[in-house]
């Protein structure tokens, strides 16, 4: 019991600091790391050798995740500085004047696309002011964008959250992707219904349910197909594009009253989309074209670790042994982060050639990227290291055993809520996967449950709950003119996100029972 309570304290500490004291993820992560280090040395028998190897392993995991975080945001800054996001967004109101269709196209489909290419609070930050400009209330604008984009988080931001799931569990992508994509696709359709309801209640839902089903099935299917063909880093991006392609004729069908929206600049729109076309081409060349794949696979960052064991702790625990094995293998020049870097450079050259940049844009891109990603880099680093130390000193194992014996057969119902709690506390699906995926995997193994399904529940719960994380709410609320009214946003948003996680809980239970 003492072991279990001590092992739980780092998680409780982060929860209290972030929710109770409103600390940032970077500060809370650092506090969590320092506390875990004390626990590991004082109570769980961590010796210098174990700490050294654990920190090195954590470094490899951190590099694996940060490479995507940094370059995904760089690509977003390259396209945003060129005005591409703004141009695409401005094209959308030309499609329709029907309020229900506008909120579906912008608050759900476009928000999903933005999550695919950006993330980091960008979907709500961009769509909320657009919807306010179209006459929606700020509250409706923020809530609809938050609900609409949540399903796309795991495979969005170029797959950084999914990368963290793979890194934390050392399980192959082809094992984890299918169930995660199915769960999130279903949540996506449910999210679409909710967005329609948020706009106009049951009346809007009855009128537009067919549109939601069609767009949702297309987005979900495209998202699933790409995720399971190992191009998961663009699954949400392709899902979003597919949604926009289908939404276009549907929006023309539901045009509403004709008013003058100005003339659509097709040339500007085509240029704006070029950056994303480059992304698809580069990914296909790097991941699919054999000669390129072979050349780029030559440099692999791989470290072999010996067996690592704790000493007997002050509580008299038996030594906890981590078997020998390699840490995270990073195929450097084929890594998703490098693919995004290649794309960013090419997109920059193209946009520059097209005259999309003003003086000093390169400096603004770099400064904007640095200032935005540093804080999250610090929080990811400290939380990854915290999680690895917990794993190597047996704390994760103790928590898993405790949960297995405490919750037992109800664990599949609880699993998505654990992922959700992690995302709510840490502000991101990525951090939730880093902190909890290992624990969820261990518990699933102990209870002899399908690990891939439990982890699908973890990441899906984390994706959905990240939409209601305080840090994200603050970003969305501020762009829609609701700074200081975040509580109002959370109160309206909470039931929708809660219902979505309940759906994932049911899917996880059904998945575990029905799948052999």
């Amino acid at each position, binding site marked *: 019991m003492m072991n279990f309570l001590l092992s739980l304290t780092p998680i409780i500490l982060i929860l209290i600091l972030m929710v109770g004291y409103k600390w940032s993820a*970077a500060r809370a992560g650092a506090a969590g790391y320092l506390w875990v280090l004390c626990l590991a040395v004082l109570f769980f028998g961590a010796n210098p050798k174990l700490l050294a190897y654990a920190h*090195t392993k954590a470094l490899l995991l951190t590099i694996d995740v940060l490479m995507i975080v940094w370059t995904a945001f760089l690509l977003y800054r390259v396209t945003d500085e060129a005005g591409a996001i703004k141009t695409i967004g401005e094209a959308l109101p030309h499609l329709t004047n029907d309020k229900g269709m506008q909120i579906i196209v912008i608050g759900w489909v476009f928000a999903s696309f933005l999550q695919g290419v950006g993330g980091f609070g960008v979907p709500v930050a961009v769509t909320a002011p657009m919807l306010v400009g179209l006459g929606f209330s700020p509250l409706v604008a923020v809530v609809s964008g938050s609900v609409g984009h949540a399903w796309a988080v795991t495979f969005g931001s170029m797959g950084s959250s999914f990368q963290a799931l793979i890194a934390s569990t050392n399980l192959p992508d082809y094992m984890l992707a299918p169930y995660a994509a199915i769960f999130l696709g279903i949540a996506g359709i449910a999210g679409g219904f909710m967005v329609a309801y948020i706009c106009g209640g049951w009346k809007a839902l009855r009128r537009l349910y067919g549109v939601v089903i069609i767009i949702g099935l297309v987005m979900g299917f495209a998202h699933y197909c790409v995720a399971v063909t190992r191009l998961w880093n663009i699954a949400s991006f392709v899902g979003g594009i597919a949604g926009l392609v289908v939404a276009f004729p549907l929006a023309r069908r539901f045009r509403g009253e004709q008013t003058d929206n100005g003339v659509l600049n097709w040339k500007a729109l085509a240029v704006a989309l070029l950056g994303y076309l480059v992304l698809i081409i580069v990914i296909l060349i790097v991941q699919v074209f054999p000669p390129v794949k072979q050349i780029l696979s030559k440099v692999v960052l791989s470290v072999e670790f010996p067996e690592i064991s704790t000493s007997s702790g002050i509580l008299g625990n038996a030594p906890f042994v981590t078997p020998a094995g390699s840490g995270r293998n990073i195929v450097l020049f084929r890594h998703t982060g490098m693919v995004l870097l290649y794309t960013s450079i090419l997109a920059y050259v193209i946009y520059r050639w097209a005259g999309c940049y003003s003086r000093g844009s390169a400096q603004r891109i770099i400064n904007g990227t640095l200032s935005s990603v540093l804080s999250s880099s610090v929080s990811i680093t400290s939380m990854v290291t915290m999680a690895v130390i917990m794993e190597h000193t047996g704390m994760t194992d103790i928590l898993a055993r405790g949960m297995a014996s405490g919750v037992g057969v109800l664990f599949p119902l609880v699993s998505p809520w654990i992922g959700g709690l992690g995302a709510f506390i840490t502000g991101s699906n990525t951090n939730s996967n880093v902190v909890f995926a290992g624990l969820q995997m261990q518990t699933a193994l102990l209870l002899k449950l399908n690990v891939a399904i439990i982890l699908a529940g973890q990441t899906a719960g984390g994706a959905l709950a990240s939409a209601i994380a305080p840090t994200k709410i603050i970003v969305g609320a501020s762009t829609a003119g609701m700074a200081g009214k975040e509580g109002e946003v959370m109160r309206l948003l909470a039931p929708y996100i809660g219902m979505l996680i309940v759906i994932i809980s049911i899917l996880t239970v059904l998945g575990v029972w029905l799948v052999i």
Partner: protein
Amino acid sequence: MTLLKWMRSHKPTSFLIALLLMTVPSAGLFSAANNTAVPWIWVGISLIILGNVIALLVK
């Protein structure tokens, strides 16, 4: 201006320093562990702790 005040008014630089302290020493720790150079292990971990303390102090 105190060090703390400087850190809080230069957040990106402080975060960059914290990040470098959290990550760079980890690269040397593997070699130290392989060679059982225990004092160097504690030097490395001390630097990592310092990085986390900086992150803790920067509001």
